[in-house]
């Protein structure tokens, strides 16, 4: 951006088209994965229809990338960042710097080879539904730095390789690998493959050439699927989190990381809405937790592996979690997580009933579908997990903050400043009314969060204390 004339409409860097082409094409192919799988392993392998559909969407991706480059303009005008794009459907966006939640700068492999960066501006709102993001997909370093400074987010140079500030956490390669291995998604991927093979064998026998016919073969296939899930999860973790670190500079939190695609996110402390401490059971046993820093952008809590630009610290030693959360929220009382109040006594009954009702129909269907009665053993396991979940639920409300925790296998603790609450609900179903319990649900910018079930009198007091006086 030319500092002398910031109000002139500017275009993306000429290399934008090439830099964005491969990632866009990859995203298109990824979104068409069922067709790709069908084309490779289906009964009519590589059918002309599948190939035409895949080619059509790939060409559409190329066209979209070209259109994005040709039509996008941006400028700083009257103190706002303005972006125009689109040909048939014209979009004009104006971003007030004081309303910006996050600024993220990202470099994929092609950005890095060409010395360009992608700059993403996120506003409050449900991303995807209300499309409040501003995306400048290929800028020169100088333009990006000038733009970031102009909208009040000066920071360390995007291109700097050293650590200009003391990193609060900088997980090494082993910790990043451990993060991937301890992700619950790895096991889910393996189980998903096993279920897919089972269903395909029932619906269309022989359509998957690798599916075994014997019992031991099944066990082997599930083990292979699980192992593949873990390997993929570890690889994804290394690509996403290698070299990750975070630090605080003034009143801004900065996060960066990534092997091929380097991502840097800048979040002003005053825009933080929530910190989530995620502790899946394996990661917990390793002595680590994951921290997720949420703003009003993105339409909900950030996903550790998702595309959101909000802040994530993949691996933090559990003994440091309290200090790290208080970096985000300096006013938070120390060790609040150790003094949480338990769920009400009736919460266990409610959880058991919900577990039975939730599992009964799928299990009956599974037994009828497969003829394997042992699937019913899942029910006592689900009840045990529900018991453990309730056992570990907890909550606390202080003058400044709310803390709530739930989950045993995948335990999460959320910390919200009360000043950010948007609305509050007191909810009771018929069973809860009979048990004299209920749930307080708080809505905050970008999401909603239920507290554990509490006794009715206590819940109503809590609801009243979180509501403004009438």
């Amino acid at each position: 951006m030319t500092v002398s004339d910031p109000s002139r409409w500017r275009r993306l860097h000429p290399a934008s088209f090439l830099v964005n082409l491969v990632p866009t094409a990859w995203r298109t192919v990824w979104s068409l994965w069922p067709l790709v799988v069908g084309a490779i392993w289906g009964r009519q392998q590589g059918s002309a229809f599948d190939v035409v559909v895949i080619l059509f969407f790939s060409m559409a991706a190329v066209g979209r990338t070209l259109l994005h480059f040709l039509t996008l303009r941006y400028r700083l005008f009257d103190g706002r960042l303005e972006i125009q794009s689109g040909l048939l459907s014209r979009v004009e966006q104006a971003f007030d710097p004081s309303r910006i939640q996050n600024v993220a700068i990202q470099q994929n492999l092609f950005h890095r080879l060409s010395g360009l960066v992608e700059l993403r501006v996120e506003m409050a709102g449900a991303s995807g539904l209300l499309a409040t993001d501003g995306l400048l997909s290929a800028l020169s370093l100088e333009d990006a730095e000038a733009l970031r400074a102009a909208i009040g987010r000066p920071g360390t140079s995007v291109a700097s390789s050293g650590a200009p500030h003391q990193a609060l956490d900088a997980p090494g390669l082993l910790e990043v690998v451990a993060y991937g291995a301890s992700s619950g998604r790895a096991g889910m991927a393996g189980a998903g493959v096993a279920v897919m093979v089972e269903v395909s064998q029932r619906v269309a026998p022989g359509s998957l050439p690798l599916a075994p016919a014997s019992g031991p073969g099944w066990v082997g296939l599930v083990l292979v699927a699980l192992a593949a899930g873990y390997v993929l999860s570890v690889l994804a973790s290394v690509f996403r989190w290698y070299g990750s670190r975070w630090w605080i500079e003034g009143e801004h939190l900065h996060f960066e990381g990534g092997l091929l695609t380097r991502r840097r996110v800048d979040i002003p402390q005053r825009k933080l809405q929530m910190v989530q401490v995620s502790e899946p059971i394996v990661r917990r046993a390793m002595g680590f937790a994951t921290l997720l820093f949420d703003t009003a952008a993105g339409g909900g809590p950030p996903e550790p592996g998702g595309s959101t630009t909000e802040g994530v610290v993949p691996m933090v030693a559990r003994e440091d979690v309290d200090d790290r959360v208080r970096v985000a929220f300096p006013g938070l009382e120390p060790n609040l997580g150790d003094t949480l109040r338990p769920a009400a006594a009736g919460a266990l009954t409610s959880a058991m009933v919900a577990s039975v009702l939730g599992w009964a129909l799928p299990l009956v269907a599974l037994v009828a579908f497969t003829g394997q009665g042992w699937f019913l053993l899942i029910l006592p396991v689900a009840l045990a997990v529900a018991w453990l979940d309730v056992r570990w639920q907890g909550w606390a409300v202080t003058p400044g903050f709310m803390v709530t925790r739930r989950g045993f296998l995948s335990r999460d603790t959320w910390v919200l400043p009360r000043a950010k609450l948007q609305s509050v609900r007191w909810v009771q179903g018929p069973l809860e009314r009979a048990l004299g319990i209920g749930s307080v649900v708080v809505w905050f910018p970008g999401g909603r969060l239920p507290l554990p079930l509490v006794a009715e009198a206590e819940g109503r007091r809590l609801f009243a204390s979180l509501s403004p006086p009438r």
Partner: protein
Amino acid sequence: MRTLDPRVKTLWRLEGVVGSFTSALPVYLLLGWAVSTGFGYGAAAVAVIAAWFAFVLRALLWPSLQHRYFRYEITEQSLVVEEGVVWRRTICVPRARIQHVDTRQGFWERLLHLSRVIVYTGAGLSSDASLPGLDTDEAIRVRDELAQARRGQDDGV
């Protein structure tokens, strides 16, 4: 606390009866298919008619209960809504947090001169609270009252 306009019961009944022909169609098809495979087409027809009758009965009776349990109050500081027959909810939206307020009218609402007031905060996922079945003039007054700028107050976003 205030109650909704009684005409909302007529609105909900109309919507429910129409819905028993339209939005319930997948239920009839699924039910008919499931029953016919085991018990034949005659039984399937009986089951579908029974299901339709149940939907109509619900559409006629349920709105009275919905109306009975729906209450709202607009105070200096907040909008409070109590709703739900089986699952009961009490919602409190601080007025300082309200980002915008809509009024909406569907086809049947226009016929009955009713409107719905929908309140949004920075939570952004969906509406935080909704007041269905207000007289249109009252809905406009409520909308304007809720939408009054709360200058100098933090919206929490």
